[in-house]
């Protein structure tokens, strides 16, 4: 007995020498156990089993399936984490967890994969803490088992307690059918945590493969959903079911590809070229976010002078108020290093939203886009803007709003679609926001849309007007037709209206804008205001939760 043990200890030591994976502490621990228990000579040593299991976990579904994954232009779950996180920073949890299903031959050894179909843990992105899970398509197609869900829930719970974001890399065929309701329960457990984490820590989903059925609701509940072009899909039911139910012929790509969701449905916030591009961009994006709702918006080292004048802004707004211009010209000019991480760049393009920095501090940008549909507010742009504003407010990110809005879009399509209800969302979001709010009216601020766009009346902290600003109930032509109905000399009346209202004074004399500023000084002014407003404290009345018009 003793001899055998000695033999075994020797073996363990040898293994330890060879394997760098196991630390000396583990070694000592297991050595003691072996001594105490004394396994039989035929029993494979624990150390060997650990080693074997680790190796198995690292190779996931095996070399063949890894090759198949690569052939599809996709990386493996582990490769993705390696690229997303700082080198050597990943700390894995639950590598030894296995599924517990015993039906349909699932209990067989060859059907057990250590770690099951997901890799979970925590790591660092540019030094900052993040919790991650990465679904492994090579193991049962990344399907969600009870164990798989349990692993995800574990890191989500810890992320909440620590106060750090969660990033999910989704690549899963759906529920583990063999497990039945256990798999469904697993989804619900994740959904609940998505909801509980919402507004507490930022949650990001990157869809890197299929994500269908109930599984789609986890990304839908997170703050941001990004997709990889050509290799990722999101849909409730796939093309086959669609065909049998509605008799529509539609491809996977058309039904739920990156293009569909970033341009038509508005489900995804951005799409990237491939896995590598997506993960590198995600690292960049992560730097804009605070770790939790307890942290201020991050401030990074900034090389762009805070008092830089932007001469180009003095000429960007055309003289004719009917002529379009690109709001991004203004946005880029004002920001640090012209760097703008646009959210939903191809959806509801009449509003521009995204993250940027001002003097190093993260800010959220909202701007009407006169280039598209004259920058009017419609259902889609209201919802897009509202969700973004609420994210910024939840995570202490100051909001800078650039206003050039001719009003809400008229028409039956909009009215029947519920523009009243949806427009109210944007109004609601701006009104309830307590983060620093700075507003710049570059040209038109007409009608109710003026009120909505972070106006002074909705607790805007600093509201500026450019000399080209026109704050009025409506444009001159429409107004004159109402005020001087039936009267002759409409042209003269129009000129009078323009003289009275098509300028920033009516708003400025009432204090609805704090100052009329030279456009080229906009950056300087905003940077200065943000410094002052950094210590802003404002609270809304206590409530269980508010009731945004959904």
């Amino acid at each position, binding site marked *: 007995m003793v001899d055998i043990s000695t033999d075994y200890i020797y073996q363990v030591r040898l293994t330890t020498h060879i394997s760098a994976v196991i630390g000396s502490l583990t070694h000592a621990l297991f050595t003691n156990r072996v001594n105490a228990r004394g396994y039989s000579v035929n029993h494979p040593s624990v150390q060997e089993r650990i080693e074997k299991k680790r190796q198995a976990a690292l190779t996931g579904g095996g070399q063949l399936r890894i090759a198949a994954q690569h052939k599809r232009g996709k990386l493996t779950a582990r490769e993705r984490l390696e690229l997303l996180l700082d080198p050597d920073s990943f700390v894995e949890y639950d590598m030894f967890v296995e599924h517990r299903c015993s039906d349909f031959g699932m209990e067989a050894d060859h059907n057990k994969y250590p770690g099951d179909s997901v890799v979970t843990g925590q790591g660092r992105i540019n030094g900052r803490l993040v919790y991650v899970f990465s679904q492994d398509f090579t193991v049962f197609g990344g399907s969600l088992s009870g164990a798989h869900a349990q692993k995800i829930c574990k890191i989500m719970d810890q992320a909440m307690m*620590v106060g750090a974001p969660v990033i999910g890399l989704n690549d899963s065929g759906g529920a583990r059918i063999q497990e039945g309701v256990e798999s469904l329960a697993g989804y619900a457990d994740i959904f609940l945590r998505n909801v509980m984490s919402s507004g507490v820590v930022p949650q990001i989903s990157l869809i890197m493969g299929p994500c269908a059925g109930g599984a789609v609701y986890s990304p839908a509940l997170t703050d941001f959903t990004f997709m990889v072009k050509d290799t990722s899909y999101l849909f409730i039911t796939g093309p086959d079911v669609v065909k049998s139910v509605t008799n529509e012929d539609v491809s996977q790509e058309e039904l739920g590809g990156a293009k569909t969701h970033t341009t038509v449905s508005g489900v995804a916030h951005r799409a990237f070229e491939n896995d*590598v591009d997506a993960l590198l961009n995600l690292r960049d994006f992560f730097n804009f976010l605070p770790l939790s709702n307890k942290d201020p918006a*991050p*401030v990074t*080292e900034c*090389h*762009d002078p805070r008092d830089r004048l932007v001469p*180009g802004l003095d*000429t960007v707004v055309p003289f004719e108020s009917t002529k379009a211009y690109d709001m991004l010209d203004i946005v880029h000019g004002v920001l640090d290093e012209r760097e703008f991480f646009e959210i939903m760049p191809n959806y509801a393009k009449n509003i521009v939203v995204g993250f940027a920095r001002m003097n190093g501090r993260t800010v959220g940008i909202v701007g009407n886009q006169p280039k598209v549909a004259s920058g009017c507010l419609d259902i889609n742009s209201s919802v897009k803007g509202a969700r973004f504003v609420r994210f910024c407010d939840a995570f202490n990110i100051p909001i800078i709003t650039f206003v050039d809005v001719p009003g809400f879009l008229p028409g039956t399509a909009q009215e029947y679609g519920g523009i009243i209800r949806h427009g109210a969302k944007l109004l609601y979001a701006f009104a309830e926001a307590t983060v620093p709010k700075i507003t710049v009216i570059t040209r038109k601020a007409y009608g109710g849309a003026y009120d909505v766009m972070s106006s002074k009346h909705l607790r805007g902290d600093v509201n500026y007007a450019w000399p080209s600003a026109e704050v009025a109930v409506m444009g001159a032509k429409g107004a004159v037709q109402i005020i001087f109905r039936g009267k002759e000399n409409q042209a003269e009346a129009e000129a009078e209206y323009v003289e009275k209202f098509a300028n920033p004074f009516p708003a400025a004399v009432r204090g609805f804008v704090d100052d009329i500023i030279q456009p080229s000084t906009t950056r300087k002014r905003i940077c200065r205001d943000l410094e002052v407003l950094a210590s802003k404290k404002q609270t809304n009345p206590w409530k269980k939760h508010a009731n945004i018009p959904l």
Partner: protein
Amino acid sequence: MAAYRSAAGFQRVLLAFKHVCLKQRCGVIICRYSTVYDPNEKVSLIIGVIKTCKKMGIKTVAVHSDVDSSAVHVKMADEAVCVGPAPTSKSYLNMDAIMNAVKQTGAQAVHPGYGFLSENKEFAKRLAAEGVTFIGPDTHAIQAMGDKIESKLIAKAAKVNTIPGFDGVVKDAEEAVKIAGEIGYPVMIKASAGGGGKGMRISWNDEETREGFRFSSQEAASSFGDDRLLIEKFIDNPRHIEIQVLADKHGNALWLNERECSIQRRNQKVVEEAPSTFLDPDTRRAMGEQAVSLAKAVKYSSAGTVEFLVDSQKNFYFLEMNTRLQVEHPITECITGLDLVHQMIRIAKGYKLQQKQSDIPINGWAIESRVYAEDPYKSFGLPSIGRLSQYQEPLNLPNVRVDSGIQEGSDISIYYDPMISKLVTYGKTREEALKKMEEALDNYVIRGVTHNIPLLREIIVHPRFVSGDISTKFLPEVYPDGFKGHMLTAGERRELLATAAALYVAAQLRSQKFLGDLRVSIVPAESRQWELCVELDKGVHMLGVSRAGNNYTVEIDGEKVEVSGEWNLASALLPITINGKHRNLQCLLRTAAGEITLQYLGTSFKLRVLSKLAAYLSKHMPEKIPEDTSSILRSPMPGSVVAVSVKPGDNVAEGQEICVIEAMKMQNSMTAAKTAKVKSVHCKAGDTVGEGDLLVELE
């Protein structure tokens, strides 16, 4: 200042410039004039005129089209009058509107700038009728010299060498073919009223003559409102050298030496210099004297330019006389020390020239590069448009003068010539002036539009240019397959790779620097050593980078490159030291996915920097299949569609004309890339199209 005031006689001068002209200026006269002008002040020619006027106590009125209403010159002039909408025929060519502006403001004199009305005899006549002085030559001289046929006859009579050709107006394409046959190919077809290369085509055979006749007459009609053409012998491989003359109303005339303008593309000048490396004092004097005798023959007064073609044997032929101030006049000012605008105003008022021919020196060397909003990779420059999102002129350098009428935020529109500025450098020697030009081009920041700095930067360092071995065929001879940008040597390639790698690491390190109190501490991925993979032109290089402060040592294929700099990631310019040598690069793009575009030696290079791991994993990424372009015809530039020659279902042969796009007054024939059937047509005559817009699809 007193001298300037004494010349003042006008109280108000109207500046009837078009947009491009506004981009001229006679601002900073380097060295010799620095006491008059503040050398650090940026002014454009019109602005130069305004300034000269101000110094002379004259009030100025700028006219402008509505798109130029916020241009620099409009803000600087004492008064401004809008003369119409953007198209030149409705604004800067609209004589009635300009005459109204004259009356409305009570201007006593008009400075026409160059182009458009500057050489229009009708305009000068109408001004004379109103008793308004035209700052420029008399109507008679404009008329005589503005008409190429008449000017040639006068030149012949004044014993000026002329080119053999047909002295009359060509009626139609068939007559053009007949005349061409008589003169002998190659021939040049050009607009009788034209200038600046517009409405000008060279033809080597009958077919080209017919086509050239058609295009030239259309262009002539749209640019000058006069479609008369003439034909003359085309002198193959000549130099284009012109003599600046200055004549007063008392019969005195001077020649102010030559300008070498041989570097051209499509008959438009790109790089000019004064003096020319080619002329010896005898030829210079002979040319100067002929130019002066021509000026005297037409009783010329004001500043003018006599253009010559000079062949390899130094035989020179009169080409035409420009009765206006030319774009390239600043280089003459640099080497002679004369302010030509000042002289023009003095002459218009009737003063005598103060200088004698023996007073005109050649002091030093001046080079001028015309910076255009053009894509030099397409036929040495097809127009591009856009908004100047960032714009910074290299005025911090001594002996550099930039004449522009634009500023950050300006729109380069399809309506006018795409010139951004004239960049002039001056040196005691040609070598010094060229060195300065290199530096100035490297420090010139232009973002938002495609520009021709890559081409300019290549021309001025090309051995043939440096040795002075140039002709008007320089560009097609040096770049027979089109301009491809700077070709990197192995050493330059290493410098570029090393810079990209160092910049990447500097950016990576900065992205870990979070300020303020942090609830959860940062665990930076501290490293002093990076293994990177850099892609450039499909070549992939493994680089080792180590860092000590701002100094990076980059190892490429066993060679070490030392790169150091400030690494200011917000600055448009990236001044660095590579292996002890100072270099000025510009970072045009830096993305999260490792793409870095650097402007190095004028040309922009696209690189991709990835960590070793990301590069290794990238090999699994699927190749995206690019669009098949042979069956798709896209607009190579923004412009308007003049004509569409096909309809869906037509069969077209390779090279057959499909449609004609006009941009910046140039007509471009778009041809089929293969023989096929037309699938669909996406444009019609009159449409405005952007660069890359789909025009026609073939099957």
